[in-house]
């Protein structure tokens, strides 16, 4: 197989229960905390910078640089907040750490907190993740019992508390400032930036917010060094990445590959290729907010620059594959309803616009759309794009803009045919059940 997988972050299939503290420690776990202590905060931050650890929550911001934004002169407490809201459709990676390897995350939190001089850390886990919340709490409690957390960290005189904070079913709380509002007990409505959370974050104090996978990478960078880590990735984007493949592939799942692995190879080799050997119609490369690629545009390296070069984003590396026979308008309908449902309602263009988009797509499907409505759809999306406090607006607009740009004929056909040309058979990959809308015979 041409595609190389690695198992540094994703340690499944080794016959080990990493949730167990003794198992985790027997494999060298928590040793990086000691090493980090010997190195000292400045050297740890420098190592993370040198390792070019990029944020894995979607935006790809370099973690070490973000850590450097904490004000040096503030006498307020500092906080580390972990974004475990995992809400971007197509993304299912952070759940792995929370459910199967929580100590990796906790070890990363400890190293980061010592480097940032933060004595409290909150792990914000989406509320639906009941098992993940229980498992992460259990691992934290085991750490307190073993002297890894609490008044000191493994004998190091550094007091540290880590807590799990549950979300309550709102995608918007994955946006970092909405998350802070939610952590403070308020509705999850994003804040204006600046001030950035590094200056005024949780409880009015300097706060660093990082994604689960970003922080889970930190112990590896400290243990093996920045050079080792960067060698597993590409220039300015170090390490391997967790990529999730879902939708129309033979073997959906989560894989770990070096950053820079070819997107097409991931789909064909790791995920078993398109369902039933059909042709690939469209691929969303990094979570539902990313612009869509046509099947002939996926021969690209999975890097921030590589996906940008084809007009999309690496995002969360949550790949969604759609084969020929899928109605692209139907696919967009799912996403437009998602964003309309999840808009917090704070900004008018987003509140009104996301609902309008969903209604327009509904009308295309129902056959009640008028000539010119494809342009209306684009106009509404363009009105939202760039006119909102947070990026949920863009997240709702980009799919619309790109689906129309790449599959305009199919949108127009819905108007000309007064409805969905795929009729009752909107998607391959479904179930053929008598009396139920069945699998598409198309393609």
């Amino acid at each position, binding site marked *: 197989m041409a595609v190389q997988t690695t198992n540094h972050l994703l340690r499944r299939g080794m016959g080990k229960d990493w949730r167990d503290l003794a198992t985790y420690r027997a494999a060298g776990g928590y040793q990086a905390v000691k090493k980090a202590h010997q190195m000292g905060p400045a050297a740890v931050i420098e190592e993370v910078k040198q390792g070019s650890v990029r944020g894995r929550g979607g935006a790809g911001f370099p973690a070490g640089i973000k850590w450097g934004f904490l004000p040096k002169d503030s006498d307020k407490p500092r906080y580390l907040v972990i974004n475990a809201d995992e809400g971007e*459709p197509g993304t299912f990676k952070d759940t792995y750490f929370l459910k199967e390897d929580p100590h990796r995350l906790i070890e990363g939190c400890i190293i980061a907190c010592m480097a940032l001089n933060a004595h409290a850390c909150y792990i914000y886990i*989406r509320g639906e993740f009941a098992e993940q919340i229980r498992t992460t709490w259990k691992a934290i409690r085991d750490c307190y019992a073993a002297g890894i957390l609490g008044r000191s960290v493994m004998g190091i005189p550094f007091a540290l508390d880590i807590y799990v904070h549950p979300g309550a079913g709102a995608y918007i709380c994955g946006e970092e400032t909405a998350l802070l509002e939610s952590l403070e007990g308020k509705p999850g409505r994003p804040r204006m930036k600046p001030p950035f959370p590094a200056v005024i974050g949780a409880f009015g104090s300097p706060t660093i917010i990082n994604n689960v996978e970003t922080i889970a990478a930190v112990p590896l960078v400290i243990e093996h060094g920045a050079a080792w880590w960067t060698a597993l990735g590409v220039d300015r984007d170090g390490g391997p990445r967790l990529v999730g493949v879902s939708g129309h592939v033979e073997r959906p799942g989560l894989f770990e590959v070096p950053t820079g692995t070819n997107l097409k190879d991931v789909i064909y080799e790791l995920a078993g290729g398109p369902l039933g050997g059909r042709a690939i119609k469209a691929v*969303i490369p990094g979570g539902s907010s990313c612009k869509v690629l046509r099947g002939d545009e996926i021969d690209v390296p999975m890097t921030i620059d590589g996906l940008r070069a084809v007009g999309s984003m690496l995002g969360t590396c949550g790949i*969604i594959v759609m084969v020929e026979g899928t109605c692209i308008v139907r*696919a967009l309908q799912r996403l437009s309803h998602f964003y309309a449902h999840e808009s917090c309602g704070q900004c008018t263009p987003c509140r009104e616009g996301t609902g309008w988009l969903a209604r327009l797509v509904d009308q295309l499907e129902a056959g009640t759309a008028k000539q010119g409505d494809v342009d209306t759809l684009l106009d509404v999306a363009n009105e939202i794009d760039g006119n909102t406090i947070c990026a949920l607006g863009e997240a709702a607009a980009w799919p619309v803009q790109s689906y129309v740009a790449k599959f305009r004929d199919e949108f127009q056909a819905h108007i000309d045919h007064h409805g969905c040309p795929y009729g009752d058979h909107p998607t391959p990959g479904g179930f053929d059940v008598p009396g139920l809308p069945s699998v598409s015979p198309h393609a």
Partner: protein
Amino acid sequence: MALAFSPEADREITDIIGRYPERAAALIPVLFVAQDEFTYLSEEVLELVAERLDLPAAKVLNTATFYTMLRKAPVGKHHVQVCRTLSCYLRGADQLMATAQRKLGIAPGETTGDGRFTLEGVECLAACGTAPIVRINDVYHENVTPASLERLLDALASGKGEPVGGGGGD
């Protein structure tokens, strides 16, 4: 007020308050404790939470109404949540929803007359790699098929309780 937290819940609330520099931050976790205790967040329950946390009732209501998992109305004993977002849709979520509707005789958003089942369409549950997903109460069922869903619902209807585990699929 007639309503009161059990001693265990009250201890848990004290523990939760201790995690934060500000009392208001305890609100969402405490609302979950209250929901576990009283099944849903009636006006009375919200007042109790406001009193316990010494927060204005309006603030508690404002937060409670924002979040979908904080329930302002009763739900059935078995809360059947069918994921309807893209990855699940591509793997047949619509047929699962149709199966559940036919089996339970209710539409999404409704509860059966005997109060045992509530059916709901929900957004991406971050388990897209094992789509389609049906979450029942707080348990994920992965790779669900219409046949496996029927069996699952039958088991629940016959009072065998909540089948455990995340692997409800075939």
